[in-house]
C-alpha cells in the first residue's frame, strides 16, 4: 500500500531459496503520471525484473548469510516499504531456570520448531564470553546427544557451583544460526533441607502438643 507511512515485513527462511518480492501501489495513485519505484538494498539499487501497471517486482536468490538483510521498495519522494529477511526459526530453550543440585546431573533440552538444523552447538557463558562446550574433550563432564532431528540434549554431570549460569544452544541452518537460552541454577543440599527440617519440627511440636493435651484432659476427667 501507499499511504505515507513506512511498512515493514519480516520473512523467515531456513534454507537457500529463490524468492520474489513485489511492491504494489493502490489504485488511487495510478493517476500519478510519472511513478518512480525503486528497489534497493541499502544504497544499492536493484533492477526490477517484472513490471506491470502498478506493481514492481524483483527476484532474489538467497544463498547464504550475505544475502540476508533488508530490501526496500521506494516510491519516489514518498514512503518506503521494506521487506526484511530474517533467519528466525524459533528455538525453544526454557524460560524458567532449571534447578539442580551439587553432585547431581542436569539435563538441558533444546527444540527447534518447524525447521531442521544442520548442527547444534552448546555454549556456556563465562562472565561475558561464550565458550563452546566440547563434549569429547570433557567426556566425563558433558554429554551431548542429538535425540532426534529437531531436539538436542546436553547432560552435565557432577555439577558444581561453577556450572551455574546461562547456557545457549545454537542451531546452525544453511542461512545462519539461531539461539535458544537456558538457565541453570545449582543449589547446595542445604537449601531444601532448611524448609524440610522446619516442617519436621512443626510436626513433632504439634504431635507433642496433641498428646500432652490428651494426657491433661484425661487427668482432669479422673479428678472430676
Amino acid at each position: 500500500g501507499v499511504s505515507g507511512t513506512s511498512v515493514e515485513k519480516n520473512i523467515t527462511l531456513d534454507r537457500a531459496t529463490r524468492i520474489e518480492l513485489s511492491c504494489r501501489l493502490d489504485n488511487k495513485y495510478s493517476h500519478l503520471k510519472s511513478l518512480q519505484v525503486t528497489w534497493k538494498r541499502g544504497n544499492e539499487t536493484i533492477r526490477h525484473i517484472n513490471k506491470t501497471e502498478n506493481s514492481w517486482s524483483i527476484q532474489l536468490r538467497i544463498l547464504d548469510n550475505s544475502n540476508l538483510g533488508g530490501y526496500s521498495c521506494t516510491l519516489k519522494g514518498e514512503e518506503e516499504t521494506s521487506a526484511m529477511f530474517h533467519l528466525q526459526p524459533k528455538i525453544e530453550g526454557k524460560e524458567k531456570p532449571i534447578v539442580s543440585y551439587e553432585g547431581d546431573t542436569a539435563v538441558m533440552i533444546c527444540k527447534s520448531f518447524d525447521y531442521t538444523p544442520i548442527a547444534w552447538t552448546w555454549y556456556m557463558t563465562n562472565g561475558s564470553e561464550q565458550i563452546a562446550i566440547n563434549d569429547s574433550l570433557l567426556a566425563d563432564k558433558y554429554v551431548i546427544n542429538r535425540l532426534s532431528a529437531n531436539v538436542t540434549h546436553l547432560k552435565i554431570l557432577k555439577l558444581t557451583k561453577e556450572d551455574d549460569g546461562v547456557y545457549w544452544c545454537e542451531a546452525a541452518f544453511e542461512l545462519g544460526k539461531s539461539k535458544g537460552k537456558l538457565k541453570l541454577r545449582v543449589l547446595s543440599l542445604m537449601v531444601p533441607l532448611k524448609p524440610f527440617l522446619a516442617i519436621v519440627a512443626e510436626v513433632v511440636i504439634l504431635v507433642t502438643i496433641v498428646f500432652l493435651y490428651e494426657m491433661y484432659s484425661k487427668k482432669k476427667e479422673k479428678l472430676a
Partner: protein
Amino acid sequence: PPPANAGRVPGPPDGGWGWVVVFGAFISIGFAYAFPKGIAIFFKEIQDFFGTSYSEIAWVSSIMLATTYGAGPISSILVNRYGSRPVVILGGLLCGIGMVSAAFCTSILQLYICVGFITGFGLALNLQPSVIIIGKYFLKRRPIANGLAMAGSPVMLCTLAPLNQFLFDNFGWRGSFLILGAILLNCCVAGALFRPIGAATAPVKTQATEEGKDALKEEVTKDAMEMSSPMNITMETKTEEEGGKGCCEKVNQYLDFSLFKHRGFLIYLIGNVLMFLGFFAPIVFLAPYAKHIGIDEYSAAFLLSILAIVDMIARPTTGIIANSKWVRPRIQYFFSFSIAFNGACHLLCPLASGYTGLVVYSIFFGLAFGMVCAMLFETLMDLVGAARFTSAVGLVTIAECCTILLGPPIGGTLIDTFGDYKYMFIKCGAVMVLAGTFLFIMNYYNYHTVAKEEKERKAKEEDPKSVRTENEGRNNWNKETAQDGPELEPLREEREGLKKEVNGT
C-alpha cells in the same frame, strides 16, 4: 440385674472431640486422594531427566493409586488389631520416608518403589483408618461428618497443585520431593488427633452383656444389631476360647470374610465396582477433550478448577442433606440417584458445544462427583454397620482397585480407536447409569427384606429363650468382630435414637 448405667460405655459422641477427628480425617483423606494427582506436575521434568517415555512415568501414578486401594485389606486388618491412631501415624511416617528416599533416586525403578509402593502404602494406611474412625465417633450426624471429611480431597488438590508448582520452580524435583516428604508427615499429626474411643474392657463387657440381652428386644435395624452384637459376642467368645479357635475363625478375626454373605455388602460391592469403571475417566480426559475441541490450555485447566470448587461445596452440602430425617432412612436411594445423575451428565456431555457448554458440564459434573464421593463410605457404613465397616472398607477397596485402574485406559483406548471423545463419555455415562439403576433396584429389595426380617425377629422376641439361641446362631459368624480393638462401643441410647431416625419419625 445391674442398674442401667453401671459399666455402660458412652456411645458415639456425635460431636465434641468428634469434630477434631473430622478435621484430622479431612487432612488425611485429602492427602490420600489428592497426592497422586498433584504429583503429575513433576512428571515432565523427571521424564526429561531419566530419558523415559511418558507412559513409563505415568506408571508411577498408577502404582501409587493401585497400592493405595490394593493395600486396603492390610489397613483394615491393622485397624482391627491396633485401632486407627497407630496405623495413621505409621502411614504418615511411611509416606514421609517414601518421598524423602524418592528425592535421592537414581533410576525410574527406584521411583516406582519409593513413590509408588512405599508412599502409596502409607497413603492406604491413612485413608482407611480415617474413614473408619468417623464411623466410631458419629452416628446421628455421620453423613455430615463423612461429607466434611471427604471434602478434604478437592481442598487438598487445589492447595497441592500451586504448591507443587512453587516448590518445583524453586527447588527442582528432588528438593520438592524432600519437602513433600516433610509435608506428608503432617498426616502423623492428623493421626495423633484420632483419640481411641470407648473404654471397652472385659469386665465392662460382661456387665454390659446382661443389659445387651435385654436391650435386644428393642432392636430394629440390622445396623443397630451389628453394633449390639459385640456385647453378646463377648460371652460367646469366652466359651469359644475354651474350645479353641479354628483357622478360619482366626482369619475372620482380622478380616471379616463373612461379609461376603451379607446381602447389603454384596449389593454395594457389585454396584460400586461397576460404577468405578466410569468414574474417573471423564476427569482424566476433560482437559484433553477441551483442547481437542479448540479451547486453549489455560481455559481447559480452568474447567478442572471449576470442577474442584463445585466439588468442595457439594460434599459437605450433600452430607447435610443426607443427614436430614427425610433422606437418611433412604440414603441408599439418594446414593443411587447421584450415581445415575453423574452418568446422565456424561451422556449429555457430547451435546455440549463450545466453552460455555463445557463450563455447564463441569459444574454439574463437579456437583455429581461431590455427591457420590461424600456418600461413598457413608452408605457402606449404613449397610454393614460401624463394627464390621473396618473389614468391609478393606475388601471393597481392593475390589475397586481393578476397575479404578482399568477405567481411564479403557476410555483412552476408545478415544484412540474412534478418534472421538464422545464414545468415552457415552461409555462412562452408560456404565454409571447402569450402576445407579442396579443399586436402586437392589437396595429397594434390600430395604424390603430387612424390614421383613425385623418383623420376624420381633415376633420371635416374644419368647426370650429363642432370643438367645436366635442371636447366638446369627452371631456366630459375627463373633470375631468383637476383637475390634480399643474402639468398641455398645450403643443402647444410640440404637433407640437410630430407631427413631430410621423410622423417619
